[in-house]
């Protein structure tokens, strides 16, 4: 079931994309839509690290 974490980036990024499709507010100097993309590009591999940690195939 830990592998279901892999689905979080798909759901989080794609389902809420219409909401994130805007310029304001700027975050870290980036328009919000670009920040939204970067946020998921960084969060996703961090989630995978959790999966990797608990995946019995790696022990």
């Amino acid at each position: 079931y830990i592998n279901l974490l892999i689905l979080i980036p798909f759901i989080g990024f794609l389902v809420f994309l219409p909401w994130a499709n805007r310029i304001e507010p700027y975050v870290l100097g980036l328009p919000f839509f670009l920040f939204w993309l970067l946020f998921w590009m960084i969060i996703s591999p961090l989630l995978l690290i959790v999966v990797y940690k608990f995946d019995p195939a790696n022990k």
Partner: protein
Amino acid sequence: MNISLGIISFFLLLALFLGIQSTRGKKMSMEQWTVGGRGFGTIFVFFLIAGEVYTTFTFLGGSGWAYSRGAAAYYVPAYIFLAYILSYWFAPKIWKYCKERNLISQPDYFAAKYNSRSLGVLVAIVGCVATVPYIVIQFKGLGIIVSQASYGSITPTVASCIGALVVTIYVMVSGIHGSAWTAIIKDFMIIIVVIFLGLYIPFHYFDGIKPMFEAVESAKPELLTLQDQGFSNSWFISTVIINAIGFYILPTSFMVILSAKNEKSLRKNAITLPFYTILLVFIFFIGFSAVIIAPGLENGDLSLLHLAIKTFDPWVIGIIGAAGLLTALVPTSVMLMASAAGLTQNLYKVIVPKASDKHLLVVSKIFIVLIGGVALLFTLSDGDAMALLNIMAYSLIIQLAPTAFFSLLKKNYVTKYGAFTGIIAGEIVVLYMSITGATISQFLPFVPQWIKDINGSLIALLINIIVMFVVSLVTKKKATINNDYIGREVIS
């Protein structure tokens, strides 16, 4: 020869030298040549997969899309990072299956999973037909980058021919080993060049990233978000999903999976590669900067090179040109090899089943020359057939995705007949839509705009899946799949 062309020539010779040297002390068998004897650790696999992402698109299309289409360009890093996330789940499964059965190419995998030589032949042909346009794009991109970066002292045609010759030589000599070593210098150069350009240009012209985006917002605010129609939310989401599914179905990505030493190195790469994709955002910074600094460019794809030439001395342009050259050579080498290995294992070996390993290696190298030659001819001729192939290349490959997905399930409901007819049905729809230019809005003029904007490849994929299931239901009793006792020596 100017200094810029001198630097580019030096890196071309370095790539050739590294490519040829990389096989020292190794006995070349078919497995060693195509998948490096399955001995590549995390770092080599990282650079090879990253090599598939940072192609000539990095220097031309990436900034070009940001320049002319704005936020629509974000679909590229979006689908790539989602493809990496997906690969955590399926790449180790594919690797393990192929390792146990000594399979060395994508068509081998399909043929073994469905116990069908015909399916292997079909996948090899689809893979080759869809890969040639990508090789042509790389050759053309190489010609444009080298010609521009050398201030026109070499024509795009001559640059493409020299690049094609070099890549053909080192692939024939060293196979995937040459690609791996060249990928390492390529990626180090890409990291330096892209981060430097992506930060220097906005800070030099605007005093920062935020002021640059604020300038774009004042001049062309529509570039910073997706549009209400056309490049809209539904276009973006459907395109990202299709491309994410298709990324590892590309014969090249598939081959890199098989070259890994173990499952762990694939999982580690699924974790690290999304971070590397962030580099593409720096490319977008350059494209957005060009919107303000160089408005009205006829060809947006040249925005990065245009800004670089306007801003830097020739020696810097030489380094940028050399990095661009390497972004063409590395992916092309893997594309050539994946196509040649697929045709050798699943077309030639079906015709000559008793061919020895040494014999097959020679045949693979002949296929390399043939495929490279055909791609170069298309590059130089610039005909309509190639333009059509370019449009549908990814759609052709994506039709293999449903068959591949169901092959990963413990209980596979799809029969070899269902898989074969599903792929054929999908390819026919792709051909029809590409040749006639048909779109969803033509089929369904009464539906809401968001449905009209959905990527047309989804239609072919849906028809593929429906046909696959119907035929599988009808042929369930006829097809008895035994996945456990099929290997390269049995299917051949």
